[in-house]
């Protein structure tokens, strides 16, 4: 490979946030005019890497070379001046403004020095749309556009200022399958016009469909780089997940496990949004006592809605939900929790905890009556703090005393807090979402052992995770969600990661189970 063929070269990039290592060591060289995919699991460090290129974060170590010259990228403006255009996962568009106004936001074309030249902006935007064949109305307000169209506006924003290198961060996460195909077409078009594209994803199907080169990142390190044509999805999946990452697992017992009666039954449960799109599409599922059912899927395919519908946080529009034989379809959240449910939400800061309240109050939240924390109507503070101390010790919550505000703990310890709280009632059904997101291996293993212990006690566990390795390590059966549907529920013994990975992308299993 020739030196000036490379538009971008990263050497030994590392990034720490405090004492948390986001990137350990990343080497990357991107050829001009190529579509280069950066592939890795959630939390592997892809987004951190892209934010470094976009000037949002500064690397802690390593060098960036652009067109053969070492550069520093202190802020987003500099990035755009250097020809790096970033298309974020979360759009940066003003809804009430038109496509043209959004493209020129912050750099309006003027007339008479003082006024915006709307005609010129609309004209140039239309030209740009025409040139890249984006099929957009330059005068339409962004508010009226679909998600896919908005994404094209984001891409145009970058192109309008002569971005040579375009970074797309998980661009398909928000798109419907037809919109994904359209995006792939657009990327092809950009490549043929000489642009270089850095495409971040964790979806294997897209890697094959779109790219020339693929680099796999795992746990903050660049693992491997292949020409896409010569590599199989299986190889990429192996590099993404790695081997022996998780040391413990439920494994196969000598004799087949015996499960009890169904604890939770879903029958044709559907949830819609305001536009009538089905977020959950007639999902049916049984979870038996003593069983861990894992739900795999790429984020945003209905897993969050599934958990929230079971717990009662969102209304269902069709179907029935049964807990221990009792119809709870219209029961309130407190009634369901009372009836024997525990819930560990996917985002501990969003739904799991109140970060301004103390560790003791967070632990007590669902346990006042269960743990006998009140006496004649008043909270028995001594008893509550004692309860908290017990839980802190039992779950090894580090750096916490009962009075510590929960927000001062690290992510792993916050998660332990949530799980300690929910397991205290020994619920018949534990709904647990993304239990180890952002945690180190030690904390993750601890949480696994607790989940497995609950199942061994005869409780039903619904595990929702986008980490395939986690699903495989723990589940007795594995379901895959795609676009609101529960595609298939496989016995783990008959499932393999590649097949499930393909199901996650809406495909069919290569090796039929």
């Amino acid at each position, binding site marked *: 490979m020739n030196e000036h063929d490379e538009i971008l070269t990263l050497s030994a990039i590392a990034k720490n946030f405090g004492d948390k290592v986001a990137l350990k060591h990343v080497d990357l060289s991107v050829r001009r005019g190529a579509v280069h995919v950066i592939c890795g699991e959630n939390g592997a460090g892809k987004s951190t890497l892209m934010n470094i290129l976009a000037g949002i974060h500064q690397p802690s170590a390593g060098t960036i070379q652009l067109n053969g010259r070492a550069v520093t990228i202190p802020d987003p*403006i500099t990035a755009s001046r250097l020809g790096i255009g970033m298309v974020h996962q979360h759009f940066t568009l003003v809804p009430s403004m038109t496509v043209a106004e959004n493209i020129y*936001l912050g750099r*309006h074309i003027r007339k008479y020095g003082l006024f*915006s030249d709307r005609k010129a902006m609309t004209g140039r935007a239309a030209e740009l749309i025409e040139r890249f064949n984006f099929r957009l109305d330059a005068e339409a307000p962004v508010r009226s556009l679909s998600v896919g169209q908005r994404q094209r506006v984001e891409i145009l924003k970058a192109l309008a200022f002569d971005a040579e290198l375009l970074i797309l961060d998980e661009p398909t996460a928000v798109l419907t399958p037809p919109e994904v195909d359209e995006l792939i077409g657009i990327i092809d078009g950009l490549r043929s016009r000489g642009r270089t594209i850095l495409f971040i994803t964790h979806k294997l199907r897209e890697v094959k469909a779109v790219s020339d080169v693929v680099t796999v990142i795992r746990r903050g390190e660049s693992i491997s780089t292949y020409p896409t044509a010569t590599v199989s999805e299986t190889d990429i999946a192996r590099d993404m997940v790695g081997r022996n990452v998780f040391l413990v697992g439920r494994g196969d017992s000598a004799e087949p496990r015996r499960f009890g009666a169904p604890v939770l039954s879903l029958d044709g449960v*559907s949830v*819609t949004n305001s536009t009538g799109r089905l977020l959950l599409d007639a999902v049916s599922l049984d979870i038996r006592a003593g069983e861990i059912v894992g739900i795999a899927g790429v984020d945003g395919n209905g897993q969050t809605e599934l958990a929230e519908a079971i717990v009662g946080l969102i209304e269902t*529009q069709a179907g029935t939900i049964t807990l221990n034989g009792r119809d709870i379809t219209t029961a309130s959240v407190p009634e369901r929790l009372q009836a024997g449910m525990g819930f560990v939400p996917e985002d501990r800061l969003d739904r799991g905890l109140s970060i301004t309240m103390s560790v003791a109050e967070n632990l007590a939240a669902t346990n006042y009556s269960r743990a006998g924390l009140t006496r004649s109507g008043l909270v028995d503070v001594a008893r509550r703090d004692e309860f908290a101390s017990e839980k802190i010790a039992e779950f090894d919550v580090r750096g916490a005393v009962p009075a510590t505000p929960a927000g001062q703990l690290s992510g792993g310890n916050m998660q332990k807090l949530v799980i300690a709280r929910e397991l205290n009632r020994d619920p018949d059904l534990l709904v647990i979402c993304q239990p180890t997101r952002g945690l180190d291996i030690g904390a993750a293993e601890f949480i696994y052992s607790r989940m497995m212990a609950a199942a061994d006690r005869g409780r039903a566990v619904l595990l929702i995770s986008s980490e395939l390795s986690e699903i495989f390590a723990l589940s007795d059966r594995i379901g895959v969600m795609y676009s609101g549907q529960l595609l298939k529920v496989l016995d783990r013994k008959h499932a393999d990661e590649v097949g499930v990975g393909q199901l996650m992308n809406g495909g069919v299993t290569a090796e039929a189970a």
Partner: protein
Amino acid sequence: MATTALLAAILEQTAPILLAALAAMITLRANILNVAVEGMMLVGAFVAIAVGAATGSAPLALLAALVASVLMSQLLALMTLGFSADFIVAGLGINLLAAGGSLFALEWFYQSPGGLRPLAFPDIWHVPAGSLGFLPVIGPALEGQSIIVLAAFLAVPLLAVFLYRTPLGAYLRAAGEDEHAARSAGIDVARMKALSLAISGLLAGLAGAQLSMDKLHFFLPDMTSGRGFIGLAATLFGGGQPWITAAASLLFGFFGALGDRLQAFSIPSQFVLMLPYLAAIIGLAVARWRAHVRSRPAKLNARRG
């Protein structure tokens, strides 16, 4: 003749409300609920009389009023944007500071806690009588109005042009609508908010000066009597759109002008004066209700059961 008199009364009642409404509107577009309009108006009203009495010059009085209210707005900007004080609390602080400060000045400097009534006060420019006779109905109603009344009505198209036809206006709206998007487009969001507060101060200062300088030529501690909040109500009712805000202000000005006349029909003026505030609450509730209905999950088609 009666129509002209009523129309003139409406325009006169509307002007301070309209200016206050526009003052609240411009900050609302930068995503600031400006509860400090009332206080900035009061400062404008007071400074206009104080400086007018001291210098004998109406233009100087007006200029000083505007400078003072803009300074107040920038004090609010400093505390909120610079020292991350809460906008509502600090805004209420501005109101208290304006009321307390003007009262303090009255008591201490003028030894006259009841108000400031200079013996002589310069006249502000008014539209000469008979000069607009060529305009039917509206012409005679405008005659005799102060230059600030004219400025108030002129401010509506000016602000509309500023918001929708200039880059700065677009950036200001972007900063208010989506800070993240604005920032990633290289717009200095804090500066846009400070700018919106400065314009707000300017408009509120005009409103205050109109109250004290136009006809009365004196200052009373409770002179603004909630007009800043009526303006806020008009803006909220108008959803921050200049023309709807202006229409709401005109309506509220009409109520105000009607208020005195209605007492003859034994409708207590208090109920008429309540209307703007009720309208604001109901307008907001209806707007939110419509958004609420739109975001409800859709019913499933019959094919699924």
